[in-house]
């Protein structure tokens, strides 16, 4: 519904009750990233640890959600078990439209259920149901049971955690509708400490559209821009895995725990190979006609008499880089097998893959032993990695429990920090250069999506520190505006500032439409204020030595340039996040 305030459902799991609150600030914080920060400001406890039951778990959508195509994402905000600081993670699936049609701008969950529970909400219902019998179940099994237990089939979103979330792993993800995730920075553990195994959001309300023809005309224009051109072809054709071969050719693909930036065996796991040999079908987030979700299949023989089972696994560039290139697993089906185990345990695939690549090199170097890893780890050994994933997700030993809190945490204890591929959290799949290493290390989400540092590296040969930092700051502003609407960032070339203003105006948000420049700076500032208030010290971030040893198409990493970037960016972030 179009409204000049936010309608927020706050659920207290300890009390077993919820209440609808009216939250002001629409014109300043818009929705999504801005709204989540605004809500954390009210409900968050900056000085208390992430696992304090009073800490909020926030899901927020934006003013354009559902009204325009590709406005299909939800922002999840929480205090992260990874660094005990403010964090955001984003996901699609049906989550955004389900929240919209549940007539909620945001869902805030506080407290801790007395027993494992599932929260079910809709426009006309709220229930917290005991699901103790699901504790310990994997993501797939939990999803099946929750589908049976709750109403709204087809027009709901089912969020759930696996064993990793239950044990408080900082790599625990929140699975969304089977193939999407709030993957990074441990949102799954926040659900786990709240005894919250699942959340079912039913979208069962409808809304009137703006009067007149302007909205209909604008929708049609935007829809045609998104679908009648080749602009989105990259995403629905090979999908993001098209990057695997491209980066490999550039010597910019992280391989073998970043000991290499290309792999001669890469043909086995390129986007082309996945599409030609494993791709079963595509899927879409609700409200998006692009269909960028690529589902591959794995067929396994379990009996000599030709008995098989099969399963479907979503793949993208990041999962393939993390479980393929980094682990030297260069068979597409084997990669899908590892990703599937990670899905079932409810782990973040990027963190899990990169953590295991560090563990493998640490094993090679004799820093850790098979006693720690339970199963001997060896680059290329997919079956061993599948077992290791189960150990990591279930916290099967002290080693795995520590590794699950972050690769650097394990490295601090066992040694091997120099080759931990951590940029704020386990790295994303781009070894493109100094600007990207800086951008992910210091970015608010420690995500390759915070800003386009990987792209800047590929387009600029100069080493102009100020120019690069200015780019990171302004690109973050543009992206945070999109994630406040909440747009899929794949649509960023269509949803220019002018287009966003048109969309907002036609829905009756003229004050936002006219003020986008000030708003994006304000939201950026609010997020950094929260991050700094919860303990982030940009100037203290260290980039592991491995990143300075890399050679890409541009040559060896320039450590001096990297340090200058890091210092200048940290200084700028401290200025932005200053409380006044």
């Amino acid at each position, binding site marked *: 519904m179009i409204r000049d305030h936010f309608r927020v459902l706050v659920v207290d799991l300890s009390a077993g009750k919820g209440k609808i609150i009216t939250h002001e600030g629409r014109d300043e914080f818009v929705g999504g990233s801005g709204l989540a920060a605004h809500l954390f400001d009210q409900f968050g406890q900056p000085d208390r640890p992430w696992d304090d039951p009073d800490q909020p778990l926030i899901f927020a959508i934006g003013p354009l959600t559902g009204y325009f195509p590709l406005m299909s994402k939800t922002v999840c905000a929480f205090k992260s078990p990874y660094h005990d600081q403010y964090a955001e993670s984003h996901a699609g699936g049906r989550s955004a*439209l389900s929240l919209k049609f549940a007539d909620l701008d945001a869902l805030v969950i506080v407290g801790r259920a007395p027993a494992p529970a599932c929260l079910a909400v809709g426009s006309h219902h709220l229930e917290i149901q005991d699901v103790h019998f699901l504790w310990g179940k994997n993501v797939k099994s939990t999803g099946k049971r929750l589908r049976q237990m709750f109403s709204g089939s087809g027009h709901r979103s089912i969020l759930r955690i696996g064993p990793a979330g239950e044990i408080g792993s900082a790599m625990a993800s929140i699975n969304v509708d089977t193939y999407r995730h709030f993957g990074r920075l441990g949102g799954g553990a926040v659900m786990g400490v709240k005894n919250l195994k699942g959340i079912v959001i039913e979208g069962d*309300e409808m809304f*009137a559209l703006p009067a007149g023809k302007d909205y209909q005309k604008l929708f049609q224009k935007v829809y045609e821009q998104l679908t009648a051109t080749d602009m989105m072809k990259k995403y629905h054709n090979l999908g993001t895995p098209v990057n695997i071969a491209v980066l490999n050719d550039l010597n910019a693909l992280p391989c073998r725990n970043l000991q290499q930036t290309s792999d001669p065996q890469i043909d086995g796991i390129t986007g082309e190979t996945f599409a030609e040999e494993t791709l079963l079908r595509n899927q879409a987030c609700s409200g998006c006609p692009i269909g960028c979700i690529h589902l591959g299949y794995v067929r396994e023989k379990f009996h000599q008499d030709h008995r098989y089972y099969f399963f479907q696994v979503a793949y993208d560039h990041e999962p393939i880089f993390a479980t393929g290139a980094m682990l030297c697993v260069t068979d597409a089906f084997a990669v899908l097998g590892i990703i599937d185990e990670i899905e079932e345990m409810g782990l973040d695939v990027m963190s899990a893959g990169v953590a295991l690549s560090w563990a493998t090199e640490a094993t090679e170097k004799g820093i850790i032993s098979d006693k720690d890893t339970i199963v001997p780890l060896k680059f290329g050994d997919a079956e061993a990695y599948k077992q290791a994933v189960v150990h990591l997700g279930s916290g099967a030993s002290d080693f795995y429990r520590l590794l699950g809190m972050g690769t650097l945490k394990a490295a601090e204890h066992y040694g091997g920090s120099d080759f931990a591929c951590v940029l704020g959290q386990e790295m994303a799949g781009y070894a493109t250069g100094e600007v990207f290493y800086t951008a992910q290390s210091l970015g608010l989400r420690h995500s390759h999506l915070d800003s386009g540092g990987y792209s800047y590296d590929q387009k600029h040969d100069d080493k102009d520190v100020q120019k690069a930092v200015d780019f990171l700051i302004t690109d973050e502003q543009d992206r945070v505006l999109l994630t406040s609407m909440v747009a899929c960032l794949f649509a960023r070339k269509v949803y220019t500032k002018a287009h966003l203003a048109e969309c907002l105006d036609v829905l009756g948000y003229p004050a936002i439409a006219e003020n986008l420049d000030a708003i994006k700076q304000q939201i950026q500032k609010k997020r950094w204020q929260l991050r700094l208030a919860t303990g982030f010290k940009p100037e203290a971030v260290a980039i592991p030595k491995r990143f300075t040893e890399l050679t890409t198409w541009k040559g060896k990493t320039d450590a001096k340039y990297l340090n200058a970037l890091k210092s200048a960016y940290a200084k700028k972030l401290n200025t932005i996040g200053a409380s006044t």
Partner: protein
Amino acid sequence: MKILKTPRMERCIGCNSCSLACARLVHKRLSWLAAGIRIMSTGGMSTGFDARLCLACNPAPCVDACPTGAYAQRKDGGVNVKKSLCIRCGDCAHACPVDAIYLDNTGEPYVCIHCGRCVPFCPHDCLEMMGSSKKSFAEGAEGVLP
């Protein structure tokens, strides 16, 4: 008269563009339910998608069930609905054997009127307007009694 059919649902990616288009263009609503076509998974996201829509029965049980004459039989299958005559009893939805009629919270029914306005919004060409005599085995019976 042509009828909306779903001959290629195996291609469906679950984007809901058709439902949203119907709600937006026909019913002037933002909704994925208040539409003549609704998309459901067939048992979880791993099993593909199904469309709930009017199969253009002739005679249509919903016409027979409607106590106020709001529903009228279309010549080649399906129905015309005059909402001004509807008393929100829900009998039409209960009579539909394939759950093609959605009732909102007030009991207002939403059923496909076979206008075809959703068709261009399907990115995978799952939907098609077909003559009533054209066979579409993918969606089973033609809606006409033998």
